[in-house]
């Protein structure tokens, strides 16, 4: 079962080739046709959302935004491999994974509109807050997995996402080392999109793979083709299983390096043409996970043009609705910045809030805003 995981770190796991054909000897993961189509739908939805978000940012309707195009295969498929009770602990680029887990797209928009309520994960969803300081969420994920174990839960896995650049941070090291020592039910999912802003993967570390870094923690590290959603699904699935129910000689944690590419800019504030060649982008676009899965689904009669069309229409509506909902959300109450700092507001903060309200009363909010 875990042959996908017990392999050399550079023996990249693949299911679909770039043309959407099964590679020799590969097996399609155990998913129903509906689930496979659902995977496709989510990927298309994430892509469409991304396009719209980038354009909203250009129009000044949202703030800086980190696009995910190219990375849908890794995000959607890995998140779909999780059970309901499992958790994801994301960085800032996992709108796709969060979408699968139940975060409304509206919330993602609100967050990037600079509205903290976008980060108030709905109570029933097992999604941790966005972490912006690179790799800092990794020890959190380990701690959550560890806590779940200490609470004698045995059927919850914790999937932590981070980028290739994150592997250079001390928190990556400390978080994974703790996971090894306490044998926590974690999956460390590295979205190696080849770039940390302008720094290419090769300058991030001298190793051939990122997967091999797991050797420093005593558990398995495996590479998967991150542009191949079926391969990602299988590897994530097996790692999640192992996290919950390892064999005698297995450790629970796994480091997955999903080799992929960010098609767009690092964020809307970034101009990748300064540091990378368009030809590189084009070469990776040939591996685009969406047409790849689409071809596979169409050729195996799981999908047809009519279904695609209806999916596309659906998606268009879903994204438009999310945008409308976000834009119709009244701006947050300025006084809300004093809330949720502590369970109970300390006296000094109360005084500051009172002063703040008196200033607003006296001068009007207009006077307090930058033009």
């Amino acid at each position, binding site marked *: 079962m875990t042959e996908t995981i017990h392999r050399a770190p550079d023996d990249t796991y693949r299911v679909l080739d770039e043309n959407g054909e099964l590679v020799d000897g590969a097996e399609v993961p155990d998913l129903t046709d509906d689930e496979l189509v659902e995977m496709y739908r989510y990927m298309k939805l994430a892509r469409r959302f991304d396009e719209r978000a980038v354009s909203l940012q250009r129009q000044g309707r949202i703030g800086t935004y980190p696009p995910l195009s190219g990375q849908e295969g890794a995000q959607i498929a890995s998140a779909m491999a999780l059970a309901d009770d499992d958790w994801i602990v994301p960085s800032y680029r996992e709108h796709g994974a969060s979408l699968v887990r139940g975060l409304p797209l509206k919330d993602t928009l609100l967050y990037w509109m600079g509205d903290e309520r976008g980060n108030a994960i709905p109570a029933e969803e097992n999604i941790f807050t966005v972490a912006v300081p690179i790799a*800092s969420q990794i020890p959190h994920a380990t701690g959550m997995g560890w806590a779940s174990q200490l609470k004698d839960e045995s059927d919850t896995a914790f999937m932590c996402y981070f980028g290739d650049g994150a592997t250079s941070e001390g928190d990556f090291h400390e978080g994974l080392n703790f996971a090894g020592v306490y044998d926590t039910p974690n999956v460390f999912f590295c979205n190696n999109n080849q770039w940390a802003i302008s720094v290419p993967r090769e300058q991030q570390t001298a190793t051939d793979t990122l997967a091999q870094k797991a050797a420093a923690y005593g558990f398995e590290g495996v590479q998967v083709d991150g542009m191949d959603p079926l391969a990602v699904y299988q590897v994530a699935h097996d790692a999640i299983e192992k996290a919950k129910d390892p064999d005698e000689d297995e450790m629970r944690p796994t480091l997955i390096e999903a080799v992929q590419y960010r098609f767009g800019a690092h964020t809307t504030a970034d101009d990748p043409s300064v540091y990378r060649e368009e030809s590189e982008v084009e070469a990776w676009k040939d591996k685009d996970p969406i047409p790849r899965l689409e071809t596979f689904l169409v050729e195996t009669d799981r999908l047809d043009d009519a279904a695609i069309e209806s999916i596309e229409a659906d998606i268009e509506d879903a994204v438009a609705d999310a945008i409308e909902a976000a834009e119709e959300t009244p701006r947050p109450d300025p006084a809300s910045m004093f809330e949720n700092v502590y369970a109970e507001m300390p006296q000094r903060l109360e005084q500051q809030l009172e002063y703040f309200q008196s200033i607003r009363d006296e001068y009007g909010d207009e006077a307090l805003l930058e033009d």
Partner: protein
Amino acid sequence: MSENLTLVQAVRDGLHDGMAEDDDVLVMGEDVGQNGGVFRATEGLYEEFGDDRVIDTPLAESGIIGSAVGMAAYGLKPVPEIQFSGFMYPGFDQVVSHMSRLRTRSRGRFTLPMVLRAPMGGGIRAPEHHSESKEAFYAHEAGLKVAMPSTPYDAKGMLIASIRDPDPVVFLEPKKIYRAFREDVPDDPYEVELGDAAVRTEGEDVSVFTWGAMTQPTVEAAENLDRIDVEVVDLRSLSPIDFDTIIESFKKTGRAAIVHEAPNTGGLGAEITATIQEEALLYQEAPVERITGFDVPFPLAALEDYYLPEPARIAAGIEEAFDF
């Protein structure tokens, strides 16, 4: 029922009672398990509560604090120990970027009922980096509470209050007085409320505000000063600070000194002074004196006595405030 305990024993007692009353409370850190902590603050807990609740961790402060954040967000109440406050910094990002603000960032979805303990301060002839007093860092960071007891009674009561508190507390223990004296400490758990200062000596002439290991020499200096009736206030809680008590005392005396071992510039003495003149300038009869550590790295053992405020220097400062 009570027992006569040192401060570090009272800390241990507080940890014990906190763990006994709530199964979600656990202790973690370097050498806190079988070794019972390098200062014995966790002695016997490993034997009583087992290695699932008294956890020896790898040597990695960011890992300790960061995984405690994850644990707390997931419903446990971890009490991580950092072996010396001078070794908090490898984990400082987890303190200021996450521990302090997860409640804010998630609009209350995730909260962190955790207590980050660390022995702090000078006075025990310890090696480099073992004597720092940087409470100002934590008090400047919104979302944290900061506590520093100066007596065994307070140590236990404030620790229990911290463990029960729904918000993250940085609990700094002045190790110079870990074993300096004993006090009767109730056997049962009790709380000393966070945010409440304690008037240690009442007086009419000069108010002296201090905390932690400086409380003792300050009280001593006050006792030595026959001609000046000194009021000594031990702040105990450094975030929030009990400004009501400070201002009330100051309005009575019109004169004040502040004693802390942290470096002068940017220390909390500045904050207290600034607030005093904001709230009670019209009562002020003399400059507020700051009797503090110097603006130098904490010296090695051979010179540490010269660095730390002691009764003579404190008395001189109080006299300045009085004679102005």
